[in-house]
């Protein structure tokens, strides 16, 4: 054993980012047509946590997710999934896009959409078979929509559509999940089902990063929190980060939102 091991500076990109960290982001800036949307993002998400991202409209919450998933080009910096670029770790990541991002009038059934979660593993030209369908049904049962498997997706309620997207991500059997506003405009039963699902995933040691908009439920749902307004205002365990001062910094002069925030704080 060498007495004085040389410090391995070159091989570690950033000393603060452990390689087993589900998501490490360094110096990330994304700009659309010269206007920066998110700036200098620096994050280290701990494994097995339920992470909420909150911030006002236009704060860059979705953009942050999309940059991590290589859906928008990064102007600078990088994001690593378990120590490697996302492109090499797709099999470890499940993605739930915003519900409004697709046309629900598309001629496919709920089961067809959920089965799309198996496409990557299937590879080119191979068709969905018995095994894939069974896996999809399992995921649909997990989110409580197995009864609607053969319905055309436009005949589902908003909450059911959201659950279809969740089931599609579950089929991937990932370790890290990105969810873009899964609670937006869903019924109470769906919200409850999603929360249960998130907790189950966390208890299995998986990490979920969720864009969220309802300050009142933040401390109830998430154990880790990112307050975002173009920059990271604060990030850390919810109980440390979710303070009046931080919310003020995040939401600035938006008074009605601040009021909601103080209500939320008084409840927590």
């Amino acid at each position, binding site marked *: 054993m060498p007495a004085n091991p040389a410090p391995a500076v070159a091989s570690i990109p950033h000393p603060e980012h452990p390689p087993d960290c589900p998501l490490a982001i360094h110096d990330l800036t994304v700009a659309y047509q010269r206007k920066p949307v998110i700036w200098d993002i620096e994050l280290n998400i701990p494994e097995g946590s339920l992470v909420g991202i909150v911030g006002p409209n236009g704060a860059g919450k979705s953009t942050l997710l999309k940059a991590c998933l*290589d859906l928008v080009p990064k102007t600078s910096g990088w994001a690593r999934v378990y120590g490697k670029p996302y492109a090499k770790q797709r099999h470890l990541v499940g*993605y739930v896009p915003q519900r409004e*991002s697709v046309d629900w009038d598309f*001629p496919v059934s709920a089961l067809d959409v959920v089965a799309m979660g198996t*496409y*990557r593993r299937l590879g080119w*030209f191979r068709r969905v078979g018995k095994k894939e369908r069974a896996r999809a049904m399992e995921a649909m049962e997990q989110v409580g929509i197995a009864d609607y498997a053969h319905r055309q997706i436009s005949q589902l309620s908003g909450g059911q559509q959201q659950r279809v997207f969740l089931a599609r991500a579950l089929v991937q059997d990932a370790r890290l999940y990105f969810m873009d506003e899964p609670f937006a405009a869903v019924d109470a039963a769906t919200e409850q089902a999603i929360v249960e699902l998130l907790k189950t995933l966390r208890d299995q040691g998986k990490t979920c990063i969720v864009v969220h908009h309802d300050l009142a439920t933040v401390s109830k749902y998430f154990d880790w929190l990112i307050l975002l307004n173009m920059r990271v205002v604060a990030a850390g365990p919810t109980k440390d980060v979710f303070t009046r001062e931080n919310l003020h910094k995040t939401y600035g002069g938006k008074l009605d939102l601040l009021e909601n925030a103080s209500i939320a704080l008084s409840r927590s």
Partner: protein
Amino acid sequence: MFETITDILFLKDHNTRVVVISVMLLGVSSGIIGAFLLLRKRSLMGDVLSHATLPGIGLAFALMVAMGGTGKSLPGLLLGAAVSGAAGLLLMLAIRSTTRLRDDVAMGFVLSVFFGLGVAVLGMVQKIPGANAAGLESFIYGKTASMVFQDAALIGGVALVVSVVAVLFKKEFTLICFDDGYATSQGWPVVLLDIAMLALVTIVTVIGLQAVGLILIIAFLIIPAAAARFWTHRLDYMLLLAALIGALSGWLGASFSGIFSDLPAGAIIVLVAAAIFIISMFFGTARGVVPRLRDQARLKRRIGRQHLLRAAYEILEQQPGPLANVPVDRASLFAHRSWSPREFRRFLAHARAEDHLETATPDAIRLSESGFGEAARMTRNHRLWELYLIRHADVAPSHVDRDADMVEHILGADLVRQLEDELGDIGNHLPESPHAVQPAAL
């Protein structure tokens, strides 16, 4: 005359048979790839593409003449068409991504400029000494009559290959059509798949030029797919139907154009496809107008019948003494809800037809045994729902009646049981109305 028609329709003549079959295969391929184009919401790109082929046809002709040929070789002309069509598409995409012009502006620009350029080029090649450019303009409107066996075989063969390739890519095309963001996140090469899809569209457009013409080929791409969508919510059936509708339009179009030599095939194809489209729009089982209206009428009738029975039941409840199925005054029944005299008569007739009520005296009706039971069940559901809304959904009591009216009609047995569970304290008796029931007197 009649014999000629049947001969051509039923492909007795060898040359027509090849032409008609090739146009049918063209219809199959354009139906399938058109369906994907429709689902990708890019149907109009097909129009840009087809108009952008014209300069290529003229230039290919000029080039072939310069190289010493007649300039009439179909593969050469189609190659020129494909190159210039692709150039038009690329220009459109470039305009869209480098400027802030909207899609429709970029499309309109490329479409008209390339078509204008094409017309100018065709005008110039007519003047080339020693070359015969007559017939080139048939690519604009299409002319099956000018197709010889070799052309038809080429077109049919290529169409078949395009269909097979499109079906092969079904999973990948479906994914990018439905959710391209998710497809990208999963590592699918969405841009390459888009290029593959547009390449197939380009091939179909180019081989369709001679039979259908560049102005009308867009119909072959859009109409079969759009018509098929009215009949099904399943992609597999939609592709199959679009292919069949394409084939049918192609068959009739090419045949009629063969019979009446003045009728361009493209025009007939469009008209046949449009006729199928209109029939589909009205009668399509999945989203046609007629089935939808029928469903609405059925629902309205059911709601009306339920309202009528409930009104009768509420009137009976207000009678002094124990609840009994005594005759109900027509006038008080009419006054119980805000319905028009015509509606009221119609609902009464429906209820009578279903044996829910009978005429007791000229001025009164009486619920039948089944009608009485049905009325009790209906009233119960309604009040359960009202109570549910009041207790669980924070609805002001005065607003409950209307909401409950709308929702009870979709209450299934499961939900009713669930409501009963949630409102356990009601027990089995019929809960009283939470708001004052409208007085029956008038």
